[in-house]
């Protein structure tokens, strides 16, 4: 069975629920969402107005679920959504939307536009209008276990490397551990130091943990492409491993959408509650700090700012925790002009980073982040999402800005009390 317009339209009809219907009928066409979207502000092109990205879905709603829409359709006064139209909208829905949800924050009638984009992608994928990059990532996620094609041996190599470097044992498949750690492929391949940082911090705090060889991947391509079946399958793998190892909690690593997938969408996707709790690494570290189990010494003297990953802060509610943690180790912590739940996206979330076609528009939209950084001129940026970090670096390079992008977990680990690596970093 291959993708087709018919399947796509059917998926639209299926996805339209009470919130979507009320959102579409409440929209007052004020256009406030336009200036909340970095793809609109940095291009000035009205086609990037967030609510406009939903036009085909809105038409399907109107023609199928409203009185006047049905009436107009019966009289042949309103056109049906065509395959060409979906093709045209593909770049709007996937390339120029990171599902960052900033538009949902400013909507005066409370429409959750990001929620609708997520639903619209279900129909787009079923109609065969998902970007090649995301299709490939989804296929790799299902067949290999990682969207970047990272296999277990690669992880094992990084674990060995980390054990040699830190002298700490990295627990794998330890039944009865308190927490099971998930990792994003990005961390395994680009930021393996993250594993060592976690090991050090959790050792100091006396928290038992493990990595599951059967489900170490935190990311979920199914959510980004918009196929709930694939998303559910990926969540099921994590749930099965966590239940098998009888852990009390699952740690979502420094990754934005992974947290949203496992913490918020997961139970709905699989249709049952978890037997364990899910925490973002920032939440866990802040809990440990509160309990006095996380102790640091020394402070970073350089001027630091914090980039909120959209799915962690705006969509996930983890706003205070990273700031509490950063204040432990930063002497000069400055906030960007718009921050927390109103932070601007790095431009690469929601599957944009897996979609090479979007590179040009993504880098253009990065100008928004540049403006934010220019306003405060920090020495370095700290974040809690490896995808944000990679693409912040990419954007900074594009705009000729020299600024390191740090991991908050790693920064905390460097200042951990009672280890050799204490002291201020110059």
């Amino acid at each position, binding site marked *: 069975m291959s*993708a087709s317009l018919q399947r796509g339209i059917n998926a639209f009809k299926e996805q339209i629920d009470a919130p979507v219907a009320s959102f579409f009928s409440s929209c007052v066409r004020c256009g406030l969402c336009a200036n909340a979207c970095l793809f609109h502000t940095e291009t000035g092109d009205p086609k990037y107005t967030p609510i406009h990205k939903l036009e085909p879905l809105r038409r399907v709603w109107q023609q199928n679920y409203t009185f006047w829409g049905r009436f107009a359709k019966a009289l042949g006064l309103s056109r049906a959504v065509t395959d060409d139209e979906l093709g045209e909208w593909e770049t709007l829905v996937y390339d120029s939307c990171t599902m960052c949800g900033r538009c949902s924050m400013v909507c005066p009638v409370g429409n959750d536009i990001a929620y609708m984009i997520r639903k619209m992608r279900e129909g787009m994928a079923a109609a065969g209008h998902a970007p090649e990059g995301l299709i490939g990532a989804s296929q790799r996620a299902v067949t290999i276990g990682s969207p970047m094609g990272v296999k277990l041996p690669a992880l094992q190599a990084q674990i060995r490397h980390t054990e040699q470097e830190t002298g700490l044992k990295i627990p794998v498949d330890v039944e009865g551990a308190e927490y099971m750690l998930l990792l994003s492929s990005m961390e395994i391949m680009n930021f393996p130091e993250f594993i060592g940082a976690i090991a050090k911090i959790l050792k100091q705090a006396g928290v038992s943990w493990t990595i599951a060889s059967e489900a170490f991947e935190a990311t979920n391509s199914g959510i980004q492409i918009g196929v709930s079946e694939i998303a559910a399958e990926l969540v099921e793998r994590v749930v099965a491993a966590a239940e098998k190892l009888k852990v009390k909690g699952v740690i979502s690593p420094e990754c934005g959408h992974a947290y949203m997938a496992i913490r918020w969408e997961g139970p709905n996707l699989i249709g049952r509650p978890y037997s364990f709790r899910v925490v973002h690494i920032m939440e866990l570290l802040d809990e440990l700090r509160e309990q006095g189990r996380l102790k640091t010494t020394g402070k970073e003297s350089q001027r630091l700012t914090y980039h909120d990953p959209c799915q962690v802060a705006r969509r996930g509610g983890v706003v205070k925790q990273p700031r509490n943690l950063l204040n432990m180790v930063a002497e000069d912590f400055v906030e960007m002009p718009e921050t927390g739940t109103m932070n601007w996206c790095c431009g690469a979330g929601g599957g944009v980073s897996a979609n090479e076609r979007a590179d040009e528009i993504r880098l253009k939209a990065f100008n928004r982040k540049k403006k934010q950084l220019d306003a405060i001129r920090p020495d370095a940026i700290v974040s809690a999402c490896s995808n944000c970090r990679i693409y912040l670096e990419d954007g900074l390079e594009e705009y000729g800005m020299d600024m390191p992008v740090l991991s908050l977990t790693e920064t905390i680990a460097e200042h951990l009390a009672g280890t050799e690596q204490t002291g201020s970093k110059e």
Partner: protein
Amino acid sequence: MSKDETLGEALRQQGISRRGFLKFCAATASMMALPPSMVPAIAAALEKARRPSVIWLSFQECTGCTESLTRSHSPTVEGLIFDVISLDYHHTLQAASGTAAEAARETAIEENYGKYLLIVDGSIPTANPGYSTIAGVSNVDMLKEVAKGAAAIVAVGSCAAFGGIPHAHPNPTGAVSVSDLVKDKPIINVPGCPPIPVVISGVLLHYLTFGAIPELDSLSRPKAYYGQSIHDRCYRRPFYDKGLFAEGFDDEGAKKGWCLYKLGCKGPTTYNACATTKWNAGTSFPIESGHPCLGCSEPDFWDGGGFYKALSMPTEDISRTAVYAIGAGAAAGVALGALNRAKKAKATKAHEKVTINDLEKGN
């Protein structure tokens, strides 16, 4: 009293001192919301004003407007002003009757053609001209004839301004206002049932002083008197803002002087000077006496759906219609909802599992 006498001369003959005259000018300036610097200008203009000829026509009316004006607080400066204008024709007040009276009107028109002021009270019947005639001339014909040579027309009272009570549903005489019939003359509406006496005299004074009609609102009412709502200037307004309302005419709220909104007060939609100028030489106004405003200076106040119904209540009894409408709406909603649910269920049923092999488009 000669017609060529100026107003100043006439006032001094009447025993009005210069000081009293200036006080009156100052009061007039403040009432018309003019700056104090205008007082000497008013005094100077009035001193020199030739007494203009005024023709007063009364049609379908109750004489309440004339009563209001003449009986109010006499003898006052306003009263004297009326003595000193040349009131050449007025049914109720003139001494002449019959042919002599009509001759006076005709003479005034002839001698002051294009310069006299026409004041009208009462509405004009159009269903049958015979419903109201004066000396065998229908109201419509008389209005048209006298209006032709007038410099301006003042429609005094709600009947002349908007049709008033004769115009109320079902309007058996086909009553209309002056502005419905006369289109080519400046018309000042001074509505009210009746209008406040000083408002009538103030409008005339403005005309005498400046030789032009005052600034008017969309209903041709002088803004100086009709610029603000009763509600905005009401001394009970603080109770409205606090949500303290009298619920009956003898309850605790009424005794405490709370807002009369719930008892049908039309203050919020009525524009008039009652709350500031007040009645009976500034004694009080209806709300101060514990009665809600009827809205008598607004068009169609008589058909507003009941004087004691709060403004927020529908004007007509719509309960039956409402029940049917709600029933029909609910039924349509349930039906549409069921249709939508069926459609969505169908879509869910038609759903085929999307796997990684289904993401590419087939041929």
